[in-house]
């Protein structure tokens, strides 16, 4: 999913970092603009984060986790997240 490190899209990824930002944002009914204002970034950057095309700095990752009121590992992972439906009901 992540572009090469020098992608002009803004990707800085050397290894994929997965995140639950789209799900968490949708759960709260926030627009990208609202989340961006909470984080102090451009709303387009939220789109890049959600698509996995930009890996945030550690500082921004903490801000994102704090915005959702969750621990960092609940928002970001180095392995793909299991869908919540699978976790809740044990099937795909």
């Amino acid at each position: 999913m992540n572009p090469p490190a020098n992608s002009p899209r803004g990707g800085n990824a050397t290894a994929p970092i997965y995140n639950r930002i789209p799900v968490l944002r949708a759960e709260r009914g926030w627009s990208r603009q609202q989340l961006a204002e909470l984080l102090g970034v451009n709303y387009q950057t939220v789109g890049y984060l959600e698509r996995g095309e930009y890996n945030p700095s550690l500082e921004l990752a903490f801000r994102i986790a704090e915005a959702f009121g969750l621990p960092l590992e609940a928002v970001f992972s180095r392995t793909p997240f299991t869908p919540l439906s699978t976790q809740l009901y044990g099937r795909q």
Partner: protein
Amino acid sequence: MKPLTALPSLTSRRWTIVGIWVSWAIAVAFRAHDATGIPLLLRSIGALTALLVLTALCVRNYKVGQFIADDADAALDERQIALRNRAYLGAYRLYGGVMALGATYITIAVDSKWFWYPSSRYAWQSIAEAVILLAVVAPSAWLGWFVPDESDETRRVPQ
């Protein structure tokens, strides 16, 4: 943070950059090429016309030139700053490549006299101005050329 929703499409940006640089090359060539036998006045008119086209293109698509490259850090977030840094690196490489090619050409042309080379003050002045302009516009051109369309980003997520 700086909103970037009004960027022209990638196709439009690339055509603009090509148009600007072709106009610029024509302007420099008209001004610098003193071996044609064309009077300086006519060459100046040609250069002025090409520069007017260049200016019109710049004004029409001014956001290509403004985009991120010369914004203050405070106006950008970390992704945009990283993007700008890569644009400066890309521009540095472009500039270095053009300078190396130019120096090679001038050296061969002057030594062998096989090709045209600048021989008058006007010609050298035109080349020098072009080199300075290239350094200034290269980061914006890199961004305008490589940053993809943001159409999906301009759409707000429904509440």
